[in-house]
């Protein structure tokens, strides 16, 4: 039987440490090595931070729902929010080979999610953004 976990946060970045504890727990349950656990944690932080900072209008409380499923040899994470439609899979990738002068300051968050996760998929359903990510372990 698959093991399912859930964490509900709000659009408040001060809650990011709760996400780190949640991911750490799943990493332990899935017997993930420390290095993979750290990068998965990073990808989750980036994806969730993006929702917390940009999905909802300022001064509006909004929810971020994080589900994790431990499957054979992989973990699936699903992040759901009811904010403005945003498809991170369509965002243009950052060029990491640019020189210092040409290098923009931002844009690395989604780039890290894409690079760390093995699969990433987005859909908009019933007024919600649903981002699914799979990490092979």
């Amino acid at each position, binding site marked *: 039987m698959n093991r399912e976990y859930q964490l509900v946060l709000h659009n408040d970045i001060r809650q990011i440490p709760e996400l780190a504890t949640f991911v750490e727990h799943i990493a332990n349950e899935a017997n993930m090595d420390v290095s993979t656990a750290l*990068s998965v944690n990073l990808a989750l932080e*980036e994806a969730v931070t993006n929702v917390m900072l940009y999905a909802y209008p300022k001064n509006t409380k909004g929810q971020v729902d994080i589900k994790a499923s431990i499957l054979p040899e992989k973990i699936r994470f699903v992040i759901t929010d009811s904010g403005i439609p945003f498809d991170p899979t369509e965002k243009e990738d950052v060029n990491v080979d640019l020189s210092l002068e040409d290098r923009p*300051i931002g844009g*690395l968050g989604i780039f890290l999610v894409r690079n760390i996760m093995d699969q990433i998929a987005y859909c908009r359903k019933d007024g919600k953004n649903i981002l699914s990510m799979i990490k092979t372990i």
Partner: protein
Amino acid sequence: MEVQINGLTASLIGRLDTPASQETMEALAPLFEQADNTIVLDCSQLEYISSSGLRIFLMLRKQAAAKGGKVIVKGIQEDIRKVFMMTGFLNLFEIED
């Protein structure tokens, strides 16, 4: 997350995640002002960094380039080195063991 400043060296201790980035940026303000020198970021006790932390590194590096200084990143741990590699940061900084 803790930042200890000693002259032109800043030791970053702990987890530089999104919520810690603002206070880290504030703590590093004196080094931004002295970016015409060689600044050392001692990362030997830095356990984790997210894009908001990388942003600070890059801003400091750009400031140093504009003022004729440089930034040395010292003692980064293996997992953070991987993040630096992934994001092309290894090419932007002087890395020392």
